[in-house]
C-alpha cells in the first residue's frame, strides 16, 4: 500500500549509518521479515525514482492518550551512499515521507526445530533484525555479522538483547574476529551436525560465498538480494536476476522486487 508516513526519529547510529522510525498504518504490522519499502525521498524530481530499503523492524506502541488506539511504526536502517540517502539523513522528527510498503516476498521462517544461521554483511543486516525477532521465539538463532571495519558493525546490542548469539568479524580486525564473515560462519557451522537453515543478506561476493557453503554442506539457504529498481512492483523488469533455469532462448528471469528480494539460493543462477 501507498501511504504518507511521519518521521518519528532519524538517528546516526554509526558514522554514515542511520536508523529511522516512521509511522505506518496498522496493516503494516502484518509485514513479513524480508519485505521492503520504496521511499519517495523528496516530493520533487531530484532524486526522481523511489529508493528501496529493507524493513529493519515493525512494531506497535500503545497510544499516549488513554482510550486511543495504538499506533504502528516501521524502522529502517540505512547507509548514506548517494543523494537519496543523503537527503533522507537530513530529515527530522515530524517531517513527512511517501512510502509504498510492504513489497516483495519475505523470508520463509521454516521449521522451528532446526537452528537458524543469519549472516549479514555491512548494511545487509537491515532485514535480519526483524527476521531474528520473528525466529528467536521458536528456534535457536546464531547471527554472524561482518563488515570492513568497526564502523560497519551495527546494532550488536539489539540482536543480543533478543537472545541471539552474535559473532562479529571485520576485515581489518578492528572489532570481533579478523576475517570474512563467511569464513567465521563456515567454521562454526561445520563443527556441528544439527539441522539448520541459513539466511543471508549483504554484498554480492558475500552472498556468493554463502551460497557456495550452503551447496557444499547441503544446507538450505535463503538470500536477500539488492538490485536497481524503478517500480518495485514487477512492472518495469529493471531489477531482474537469472533464475536457475535461465537460458537466452528460454528466459528465466525473476524480479527481485516481486519474486524476491528473498530467494532460496538454489533457485538462482550464480555464475
Amino acid at each position: 500500500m501507498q501511504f504518507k508516513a511521519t518521521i518519528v526519529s532519524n538517528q546516526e547510529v554509526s558514522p554514515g549509518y542511520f536508523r529511522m522510525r516512521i509511522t505506518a498504518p496498522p496493516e503494516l504490522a502484518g509485514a513479513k521479515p524480508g519485505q521492503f519499502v520504496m521511499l519517495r525521498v523528496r516530493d520533487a524530481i531530484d532524486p526522481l525514482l523511489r529508493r528501496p530499503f529493507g524493513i529493519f523492524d515493525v512494531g506497535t506502541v500503545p497510544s499516549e492518550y488513554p482510550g486511543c488506539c495504538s499506533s504502528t511504526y516501521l524502522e529502517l536502517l540505512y547507509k548514506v551512499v548517494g543523494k537519496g540517502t543523503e537527503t533522507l539523513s537530513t530529515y527530522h522528527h515530524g517531517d513527512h515521507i511517501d512510502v509504498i510498503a510492504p513489497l516483495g516476498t519475505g523470508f520463509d521462517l521454516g521449521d522451528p526445530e532446526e537452528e537458524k544461521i543469519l549472516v549479514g554483511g555491512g548494511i545487509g543486516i537491515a532485514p535480519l533484525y526483524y527476521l531474528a525477532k520473528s525466529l528467536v521465539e521458536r528456534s535457536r538463532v546464531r547471527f554472524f555479522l561482518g563488515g570492513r571495519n568497526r564502523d560497519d558493525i551495527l546494532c550488536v546490542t539489539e540482536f543480543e538483547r533478543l537472545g541471539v548469539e552474535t559473532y562479529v568479524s571485520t576485515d581489518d580486525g578492528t572489532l570481533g574476529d579478523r576475517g570474512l564473515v563467511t569464513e567465521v560462519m563456515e567454521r562454526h557451522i561445520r563443527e556441528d551436525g544439527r539441522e539448520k537453515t541459513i539466511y543471508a543478506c549483504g554484498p554480492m561476493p558475500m552472498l556468493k560465498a554463502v551460497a557456495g557453503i550452503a551447496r557444499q554442506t547441503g544446507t538450505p539457504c535463503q538470500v536477500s538480494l539488492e538490485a536497481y529498481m524503478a517500480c518495485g512492483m514487477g512492472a518495469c523488469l529493471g531489477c531482474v536476476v537469472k533464475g536457475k533455469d535461465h537460458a537466452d532462448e528460454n528466459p528465466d528471469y525473476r524480479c527481485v522486487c516481486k519474486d524476491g528480494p528473498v530467494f532460496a539460493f538454489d533457485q538462482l543462477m550464480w555464475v
Partner: protein
Amino acid sequence: MNRPDLSVEIAGIKLRNPVMTASGTFGYGEEFAEYVNLEKIGAIITKGLSIKPKAGNPTPRIQETTGGMLNAIGLQNVGIDAFIEKKVPFLRTVDTPAIVNFFGNTLEEYAELAGRLDTIPEVAGVEINISCPNVKHGGIVFGTDPKAAYSVVKAVREATIKPVIVKLSPNVTDIVEMAWACVDAEADALSLINTLTGMAVDLKTRRPVLANVTGGLSGPAVKPVALRMVWQVANAVKVPVIGIGGIMTGTDALEFMLAGASAVQVGTANFLDPAASERIAREMEQYLVENGISDVKELIGALQV
C-alpha cells in the same frame, strides 16, 4: 457546472479520459491494480510483446539521470502465448480499453503478431513499437527509416482490422517525415515519443552503467523534446496524435494537448507515484472545472502561435 467531458476517441477507441499508461511502465495492468483504480484511466497499454518470450538484456538495466532515467530492459516479455493465457484474463475483468504494444524482428513477425492479436476480443487496438533503441534488430531500422516504417505499418495494417497506433522514435532528424510515412501506410494514430538513446558512465569502475551500454532516456528531462515533436507532427498529419514524454502532472498532460495531442501516455511517472495516471486524469478534470471548460477536446491543438 456539469462535470466536464474528458472523453476522447482515438482511432475509433473510446476513452473515458485522455490518460493512458505507457508501454513498459505499467506491466500488464494487474501490477498496478492495488494503487490505481484502473477504471478511472483512459486506456492501459501493455508491455511490448513479441511472438516468442524474450529474455531482454543483462543487468543493470536501469539508471537514474538528472530529471530522467535510462532503461535497457531489452523488451523482455512473456510472448504471445503466455500473454493470452496469463494476462488477458485479468484485462478482461477491467472495463478499460487494453491496447497491446508489440514488436517483431522482421516484417513477417510484425504481420504474424498483428494477425494473432486481431483475433483477441479483449484487445481494443495495437500500438506498433518501431522505435525501440535497445534491441539490435528489434526496431532500430524500422523506426529511423521512413521506407522501412512504411512497410512495417503496411504489413500490420493488412494483418488486422483493429485500430493501429504507430509509436515513433525521437532519434531521427525529421520526425515529420517519419510521421508521414506511417500515415501513408494507413496508421490510424501516432504516439510519440519513445525514449531518446542515451548512456551513463561509472567513473569508479570505468564502465558503462548499463550492461547494454546504451539505453533509452525517459522522464521529465525529455519533455521539451517530446512537446516539440508532438507539436510538429500534430501540425503535419490529420490522424490523432498521442503525446508521451515526461508527463508528471495534469498540467503537463494539458500542455501536450494544447500542442496538438488528442490523448497522452504516462510512463516514468508511474514509478514515482503508482497512482500517477489516475491522479493526472483527476488533475485534468479539476483544471477544466476551474476554468469553466466543458470539453477537454476544446484544448486539442489550441496553442496560439
